[in-house]
């Protein structure tokens, strides 16, 4: 069996100098926790995972993107403050803005040692400009299509990917459909169907609130 993630993090810190690795807990009862690796250390960490004799994670099972858009969490804070010279308890809403990012998750297994999974993830700097991550295709060839898919659907650019093109959407397509803020363009070449009427009726009903759904 593989060592615990905590042990792995400390070992990585000792073996690989100045590596930025941290643990990301997972609350699901069946799922293991994962490691977060800083993008600049991604290749080093990957090479380590693959070649370390205790790990030998030679098989990249799954590679996928996750979109975490900007989040605004509102928090009501009560604080005591001097208002007009009198100390009063004032309630105010604090808006904490968590900047969004794109995340790429890697599931690694070892065919050699038959263990796994080790999950590690990398996050981009933001969702628009700094969407670069190191490509894992030179380490695991199996990343080739999956990275292309993430590039296609999320817009993460993988540096030093040998053939970074769109995988599923067509070449001239512009947006990245799996992002949470993707708006479907109204450019389908569809024929009218009876279903359009149904959807229109639903819309009409919901907007007018005729029956008031339960």
């Amino acid at each position, binding site marked *: 069996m593989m060592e615990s993630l905590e042990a792995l993090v400390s070992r990585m810190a000792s073996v690989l100098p100045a590596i930025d690795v941290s643990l990301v807990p997972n609350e699901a009862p069946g799922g293991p926790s994962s490691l977060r690796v800083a993008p600049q250390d991604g290749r080093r960490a990957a090479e380590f995972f693959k070649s370390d004799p205790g790990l030998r994670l030679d098989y990249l099972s799954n590679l996928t993107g996750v979109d975490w858009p900007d989040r605004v969490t509102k928090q009501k804070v009560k604080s005591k403050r001097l208002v007009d010279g009198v100390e009063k308890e004032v309630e105010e809403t604090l808006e904490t803005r968590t900047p969004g990012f794109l995340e790429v998750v890697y599931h690694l297994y070892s065919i050699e040692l038959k263990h796994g999974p080790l999950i590690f993830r990398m996050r981009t700097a933001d969702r628009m400009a700094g969407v670069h991550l190191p490509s894992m295709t030179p380490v695991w060839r199996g990343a080739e299509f999956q990275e292309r898919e993430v590039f296609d659907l999320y817009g993460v650019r993988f540096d030093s990917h040998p053939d970074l093109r769109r995988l599923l959407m067509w070449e001239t397509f512009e947006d990245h459909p799996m992002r949470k803020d993707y708006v479907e363009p109204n450019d389908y070449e569809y024929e009218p*169907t009876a279903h359009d009427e149904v959807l229109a009726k639903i819309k009409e009903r919901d907007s007018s609130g005729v029956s008031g759904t339960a």
Partner: protein
Amino acid sequence: MLGTGLIKGMAETARNFVGSFLEEDRLTTVEYPEERIPAKEAARSFPFLVFDGDDAEKGLRCVACQICEKECPPQCIFILKDTAKKPDFVGKMQFQPKVFDIDVSVCMSCQICVEVCPFEAIKMDVDFELSRFDRFEGLLIHKDELSKPNSYFRKIHPTDAAAVDANLAAEKAKAEAKAVADAAAKAKAASAAAAGLAAPAKPAAAAPPPPPTPADPILKSASSSTAGPGLAETGSGKTHAPAHGS
């Protein structure tokens, strides 16, 4: 030697050629329109609405709770609630769907509507010959066409129907017992009114909780105005438009 594998293969095809005339199980083809495989009991093709008794309007089990509409993955169901309540199979006052449309062209026969329905009101049909001549309106199946009697359900899915019937009968018996008990309790409460405490006559919910009824004053008044079930039926039978207009 060259050719032995080929000759072996040719012997096998010859065996199958002859076998297709002699052995029944080799020939799986069914000459469809003339010859039909009897439908499997579990088979499913397209949903239908079950009604009890003979009258599709009266006995419809559906209470327009719209759970199926929400759960339907391709969103092919459209329901519009009626404005009047009518007694359902247990005798409880319930809403009925005024409009219940399913789009055949979108439905993917997944049976999720059947599973999520708490009232055993929607079931899967086995009739797969659903082609229509009209591409638009024809593919939208309306309530009158969707409603099929319970006897039909018993015919196509006997095991399932027996279980459902037993379940419903038990529920009904429970509800009746409850009603009797409630009545008794009410009577008792009335007789014991001296204390001035009215026993809470709220009937306990049956196993699947019915959806909360909307507290719309217009609807309330409408349902109160059509007191008798017979009246309600005539009211909802053909006069949709005025009901809607009001």
